[in-house]
């Protein structure tokens, strides 16, 4: 009997649908169909990160990027923390162009941007995820 598999598709949620929603962790699928936990930024740790990253429309659509990326590449960072973490499991950088424009966030229209989503995953490592958003 043929094995039937189902694939959860994450749909892009609009600004109006997500604006004001509380930031809570959620699961999505990576490019291998593996479940990934998407965690909120911890204000006590990420003291000065991009204000856009704290917006509900951005955070709640990170899962969409993982399934609709423009490019995915391995981390080649020589930062000591990145090297240590790479030993625990793969680190992939998912890139989506013009993500903020796609979300149609008021006040951000017309800004060219690129979004990098970084995922760390391994058999013995908890899934973690960080992301950065910047203009180009």
């Amino acid at each position: 009997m043929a094995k039937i598999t189902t694939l959860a598709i994450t749909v892009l949620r609009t600004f109006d649908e997500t604006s004001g929603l509380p930031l809570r962790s959620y699961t999505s699928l990576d490019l291998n169909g593996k479940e990934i936990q998407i965690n909120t930024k911890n204000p006590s740790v990420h003291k000065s990160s991009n204000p856009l990253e704290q917006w509900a429309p951005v955070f709640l659509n990170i899962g969409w990027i993982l399934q609709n990326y423009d490019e995915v590449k391995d981390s080649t960072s020589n930062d000591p923390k990145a090297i240590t973490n790479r030993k625990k499991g793969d680190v992939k950088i998912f890139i989506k162009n013009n993500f903020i424009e796609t979300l149609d966030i008021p006040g951000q229209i017309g800004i060219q941007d690129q979004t990098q989503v970084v995922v760390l995953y391994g058999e013995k490592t908890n899934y973690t995820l960080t992301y950065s958003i910047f203009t180009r």
Partner: protein
Amino acid sequence: MKNIKKILKKWYISYNHYSDLFQMYDYLAFTMPKDQREEHTNDNIKIIINKDTSQPILIEIRRAYDTLHADIDKLDKTDIINLVEPYFYKYE
């Protein structure tokens, strides 16, 4: 470019050790229309200037660990400002 340290003290800092991308910026950097910005790019470093005021609003450094020779996550804001300040004087 005067009082650069004073300006940088008010900026946000963003660093991701996986992508090794460092950014320091005024929030205006993400809301200012493109025609009001002037970009200077050299190797791994990009600086964006506000055309109206001639003041910088963002510095972005790719491969930050190799460029700055420092682990950004272990530095405080004063140390980071001292580290990036010299890059602004190249665009005076």
